[in-house]
């Protein structure tokens, strides 16, 4: 390698490299950074090298092993220049094809990048949304250089800024230029770099030594941009350091890098050596009479050593403890000499500013926050990786556009910036621009640039606890309040997550957090409380949920969750327990377990929305969830309900009126009757069941099942009065006059929402509830010809499938305003409907209703045609009857408050559909206007306002629950409301305080796990109920799903991971109990 003594020589050499650009030879670029190597890029590199050697491709192909390219989610990937074709997540076997194609200048289409779930091929890096949203002035260079070759760096214009700086007439202009560029420290605090340099320049050192230190002690969990810069482009940092030294007349440079970054150390060391050999470091640099040299210093990995005074102590060989500033390091730093400490990324920005000019730099970014910032985007996000965006970019853009949104199905809840010193910013604030001042105002900090994305499955208390645990170990321990404060904060948070929290804890937590912030010396301590304070600020209700309700809604805190299936169940069923009973073949006990928690086992076994399965540990951890509902079906089909016979208590004098004989009303009545209260149920229709009989179609829930189940719940304490309607036949006051001691309102939500279009009342258009009631209660078939259904929820899918089974119907189309993924109906049902012949049009308009994807599946399987992304805008009628409807197509816009993307109409995309019948299923609301006259509080949606913990309304002795309170909701939630109402009414009648203090629902009964060898792991596939084929079920109302055979059920139950044992295993230890259980099993 040549060494240069003058600027002119160096300039000539640079020019010769710049001119000799390669002659269009294709180049394979592959990441050899730490992340890439961890994903297996070394294997790919070996394959490529071998192929080049074997096939003698040296002249036709080159290979560039670079540092981190940022798109770490797709590692290991290869980019082929000059087309910038990106081949993600490669395997060794794929490589030969890519090499062969690259030589010929072709692409391998099937390996090219596609967005997850999309089929659109992105041919070039520039077309990929992840890269499109970024401005990569610093990080972008990583792709173009091999970090261990200085010539690569020179070839992209490297060291041009240094050359310019050295050649300049007076070094003061460098500081001027940096001041003008308004560059702020990228380490997190954002101190203006120019100002720091100016002060350093003005300092006189008695010993003549002055230091420039590059702070690469990056220790935040989840952040790795400094490492990637140092690994991927060390010369950029070195150039920045030499310029800094030049500006402030420094004599010594130190790169402080932690030992955990071996590759960064290696690359930095090589780069320093090469720069020295070339004459860019050392004595009399390029003949300009300027001496400066750099060495690396390996930190031992203490987080606190990122703090500048602690870093200095660490280099001095002392304990890494911060000290009081002033005096600032600029005045009295390393070994008492003036010392200027800059972050890696700050220095990386310097060459760009000098070569492009401060004015060009100012154009990037926002007011007072010029330039870009690199973030490491990690957590529950699709595109994990390093992103570089101009400051001032909204958080939402980084998360949703560049990051690609949540990695799973759960909604994004918050982001955490700034590592342990930072805070959490909730999703509702994602419009916030990312800059130093806005983040600080929101209670977080920019920090070095970690950005951790959290979704609904992240518990914010647990997050705060995690960071406190980190900090109690990483605090240096000098300040008493930081050392002991972080320990105490962690202790309190731990108590809260263990269910031992009290409301006083919350007060203490906040008070202590503020004290820690106030009374500590260094940056670590002063920001240590941020994770607690910011989560308390934005997620206080989550803390309260842990403390008051003893629940962790993210299912993270084990001592509050217990077995997730049980915790997820609104009626507190113990699925683990009955699944274990099925495994043992004790089906009657399994039935008793189910029935003791849920009065409607057979109904739930068919229509429950299975919250338990969505939380099943097996499903959450990558396997297939246990088919809990199908197992319940197996038990309820097999066991007679008479095995569970609760005995009612002695009759009491007090009586309760229940309005509405739906699942909520009957559950409450049943519960109260067992306690001895006399209950009268007033029902508007002529039979009990509510939505179970009038809305749910018979092919999902056969009528006789409903009737039989209700019969088992009625006893001598319950009286029915049919055809009696509250508001028409009596008032709440009348009921109290009639000597009822409490009233439970549970008459559901039976009023359909309207589209609010002209001609909505012409013949042929029916609200879905009216349509379903007419058929289910009276057998009238209202649909004929081609039927259109508007909506995406379960009642829309139900209506579509019922219509399809009616005689005069030729076809059914479902119109929905968003896409399939956003449809709130059960997926299975939609599939089934489509199979049966229903057509679905999506991205049409209306409102959301509760239901799940499975329903959609079922509907689709039955042949429902689905049209998505369309909204009705006009109804045309002929002679007072529906003729056709006009729709407009939508596209998906920004993410709205519900976490789904908003449909935006596309102008000019209107189209007409000829329809004979139109069913409007865009949601229902309670018919509750008259309740307001009786003094009840009603909200805008017609729902009765209650205390959610007790279901008590604003009137004394009046309780309400079910759809009347929540709007259209699931059967199991209605049953849960009924149970809660019975409990609250009981407490109310016994004049006891409401509600009872909460307790975590933990497994209590020990059931021995299966012992026979080989019983586990026989299958990892989830069992499904057999079903009628679409041909068998069309035009009839036979139940579609059937029950599974005993062998299948036993095997399915054996797959259970038995989360309960973690809580009950200790009970097996006391000798007698397991023996007794053994005996039972053999009986």
């Amino acid at each position, binding site marked *: 390698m040549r060494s240069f003594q003058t600027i002119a020589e160096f300039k000539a050499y640079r020019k010769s490299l710049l001119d000799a650009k390669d002659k269009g030879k294709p180049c394979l670029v592959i990441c050899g950074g730490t992340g890439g190597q961890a994903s297996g890029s070394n294997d790919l590199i070996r394959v490529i090298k071998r192929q080049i050697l074997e096939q003698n491709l040296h002249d036709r192909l080159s290979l560039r092993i670079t540092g981190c390219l940022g798109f770490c989610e797709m590692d290991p990937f290869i980019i082929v220049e000059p087309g910038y074709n990106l081949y993600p997540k490669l395997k060794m076997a794929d490589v030969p094809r890519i090499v062969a194609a690259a030589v010929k200048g072709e692409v391998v289409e099937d390996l090219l990048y596609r967005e997850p779930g999309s089929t659109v091929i992105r041919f070039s890096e520039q077309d990929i949304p992840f890269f499109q949203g970024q401005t990569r002035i610093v990080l972008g260079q990583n792709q173009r250089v091999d970090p261990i070759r200085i010539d690569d760096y020179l070839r992209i214009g490297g060291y041009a800024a240094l050359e310019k700086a050295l050649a300049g007439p007076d070094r003061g202009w460098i500081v001027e230029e940096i001041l003008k560029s308004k560059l702020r420290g990228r380490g997190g605090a954002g101190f203006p770099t120019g100002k720091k340099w100016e002060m350093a320049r003005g300092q006189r050192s008695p010993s003549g030594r002055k230091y420039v230190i590059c702070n690469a002690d990056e220790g935040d969990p989840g952040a790795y941009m400094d490492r990637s810069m140092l690994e991927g482009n060390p010369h950029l940092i070195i150039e920045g350091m030499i310029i800094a030294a030049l500006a402030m007349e420094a004599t010594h440079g130190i790169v402080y890098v932690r030992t955990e970054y071996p590759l960064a150390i290696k690359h930095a060391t090589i780069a320093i050596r090469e720069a020295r050999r070339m004459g860019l470091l050392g004595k009399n640099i390029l003949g300009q009479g300027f001496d400066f040299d750099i060495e690396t210093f390996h930190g031992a990995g203490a987080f606190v050593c990122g703090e500048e005074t602690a870093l200095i102590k660490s280099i001095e060989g002392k304990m890494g403890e911060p000290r009081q500033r002033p005096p600032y390091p600029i005045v009295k730093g390393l070994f008492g000499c003036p010392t200027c400490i800059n972050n890696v990324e700050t220095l990386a920005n310097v060459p760009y500013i000098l070569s492009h000019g401060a004015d060009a730099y100012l154009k990037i970014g926002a007011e007072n926050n010029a330039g870009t910032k690199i973030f490491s985007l990690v957590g529950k996000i699709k595109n994990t990786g390093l992103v570089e965006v101009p400051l001032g970019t909204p958080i939402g853009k980084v998360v949703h556009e560049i990051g690609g949104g949540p990695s799973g199905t759960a909604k994004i809840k918050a982001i955490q910036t700034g590592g342990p010193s930072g805070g959490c910013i909730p999703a509702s604030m994602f419009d916030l621009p990312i800059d130093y001042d806005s983040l600080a105002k929101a209670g977080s900090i920019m920090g070095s640039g970690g950005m951790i994305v959290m979704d609904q499955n992240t518990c914010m208390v647990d997050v705060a606890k995690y960071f406190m645990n980190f900090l109690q170990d*990483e605090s*240096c321990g000098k300040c008493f309040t930081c050392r002991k404060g972080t320990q105490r904060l962690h202790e309190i948070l731990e108590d809260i997550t263990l269910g031992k929290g009290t409301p006083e804890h919350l007060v203490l937590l906040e008070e202590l957090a503020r004290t820690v912030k106030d009374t500590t010396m260094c940056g670590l301590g002063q920001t240590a409380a941020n994770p607690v304070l910011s989560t308390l600020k934005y997620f206080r209700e989550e803390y309260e949920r842990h403390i008051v309700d003893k629940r962790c809604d993210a299912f993270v805190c084990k001592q509050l969750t217990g077995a997730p299936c049980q915790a997820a169940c609104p009626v507190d069923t113990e699925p683990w327990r009955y699944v274990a009973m099925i495994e043992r073949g004790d089906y009657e006990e399994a039935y008793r377990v189910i029935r003791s928690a849920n009065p409607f086992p057979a109904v739930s076994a068919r229509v429950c929305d299975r919250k338990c399965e969505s939380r099943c540990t097996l499903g959450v951890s990558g396997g297939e969830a246990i088919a809990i509902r199908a197992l319940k079906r197996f038990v309820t089909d097999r066991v007679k309900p008479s095995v569970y016979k609760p005995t009612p208590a002695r009759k009491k004098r007090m009586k309760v009126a229940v309005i509405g004989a739906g699942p909520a009303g009957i559950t409450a009545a049943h519960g109260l009757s067992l306690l001895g209260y006399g209950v009268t149920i007033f029902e508007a229709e002529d039979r009990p069941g509510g939505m179970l009989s009038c809305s749910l179609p018979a092919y999902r829930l056969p009528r006789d099942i409903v009737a039989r189940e209700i019969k088992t719940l009625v006893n001598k304490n319950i009286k029915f009065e049919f055809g009696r309607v509250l508001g028409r036949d009596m008032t709440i006051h009348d009921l109290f006059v009639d000597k009822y001691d409490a009233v439970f309102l549970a008459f559901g939500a039976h009023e359909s929402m309207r589209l609010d279009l002209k001609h909505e009342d012409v013949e042929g258009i029916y609200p879905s509830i009216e349509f379903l009631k007419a058929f289910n209660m009276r057998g009238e078939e209202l649909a004929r010809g081609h039927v259109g259904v508007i909506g995406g929820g379960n009642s829309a899918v139900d209506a579509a499938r019922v219509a399809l089974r009616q005689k005069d119907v030729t076809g059914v189309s479902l119109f929905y305003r968003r896409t399939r993924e956003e449809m709130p109906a059960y997926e299975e049902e939609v599939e089934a409907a489509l199979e049966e012949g229903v057509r679905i049009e999506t991205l049409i308009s209306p409102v959301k209703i509760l239901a799940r994807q499975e329903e959609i599946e079922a509907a689709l399987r039955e042949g429902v045609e689905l049209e998505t992304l369309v909204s009705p805008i006009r109804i045309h009628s002929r002679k007072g009857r529906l003729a056709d409807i006009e729709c407009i197509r939508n596209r998906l816009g920004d993410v709205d408050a519900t976490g789904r993307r908003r449909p935006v109409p596309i102008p000019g995309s209107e189209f007409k559909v000829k329809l004979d019948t139109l069913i409007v299923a865009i949601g229902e609301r309670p018919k509750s206007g008259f309740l307001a006259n009786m003094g009840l509080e009603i909200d805008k949606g017609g729902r009765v306002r209650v205390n959610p913990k007790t279901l008590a309304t604003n009137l004394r002795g009046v309780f309400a629950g079910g759809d009347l309170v929540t709007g259209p909701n699931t059967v199991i939630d209605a049953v849960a409301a009924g149970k809660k109402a019975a409990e609250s009414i009981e407490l109310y009648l016994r004049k006891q305080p409401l509600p009872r203090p909460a307790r975590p629902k933990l497994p209590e009964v020990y059931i021995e796990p299966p012992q026979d060898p080989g019983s586990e792991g026989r299958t990892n596939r989830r069992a499904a109920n057999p079903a009628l084929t679409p041909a068998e079920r069309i035009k009839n109302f036979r139940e579609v799903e059937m029950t599974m055979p005993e062998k299948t059920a036993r095997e399915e139950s054996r797959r259970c991971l038995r989360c309960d044992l973690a809580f009950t295993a200790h009970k097996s230890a006391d000798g007698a109990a397991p023996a007794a259980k053994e005996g039972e099993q053999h009986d």
Partner: protein
Amino acid sequence: MINLTINGVPVSVEKGTTVLEAARYLGFPIPTLCHKEGLTPYGACRLCVVEIGREPNSRLVSSCTYPVEEGLVVRTASERVVKARRMVIELLLASCPQSKTIQDIASRHNVRQQRFRQEHEDCILCGLCVRMCEEQMMAGAIGFRGRGRGRSLGTPFDVQSEVCRLCGGCMEVCPACQARCTFNEPEKAICGACANLSPPCVEKEQFHDMMCYLTPCVACEIKK
């Protein structure tokens, strides 16, 4: 000379003086645990925090380590300072209730509760002994090890140091282990025995079951 104001009183002191020294020179009391004349200021206990600057940009700093600056505005007992100080005392009581020094400070600041889980540690890691050993006894036999939760005090490799002369200087300065509080209810964080500064019988509700050891009783004297 540097001019500054402490609690509204202007004062000019020599360059290099700490805020603590300046405040004490004026007679403002600031409690300290890890400070001792003759030893370098360390700033570990955080009891001596004072508020500097003007609101809303004021902040708390440890007065023992903060050098005076021209025009500095200091408040030694603002509401924010007192609140922080009381929380520090509460934390100290939670860790080290048997120290008479700490009990006295708690009493003087009218701290009447301790809401954390009670611990009984022998050391608050104030570092007085380390500095005493190194700076006054010229030995350097003991020092700190580890960080954060794992920080502790000891000799290298936990064997008796060759330079240790068993002078006892470390114990002499220790606020935690030397002056033991012999209070009569070990399970309670707050000393119920002498409670020497704020007269116990004045606040009956907290001290309903205690005996007064003071002769003559300060509180009774005050009441007269």
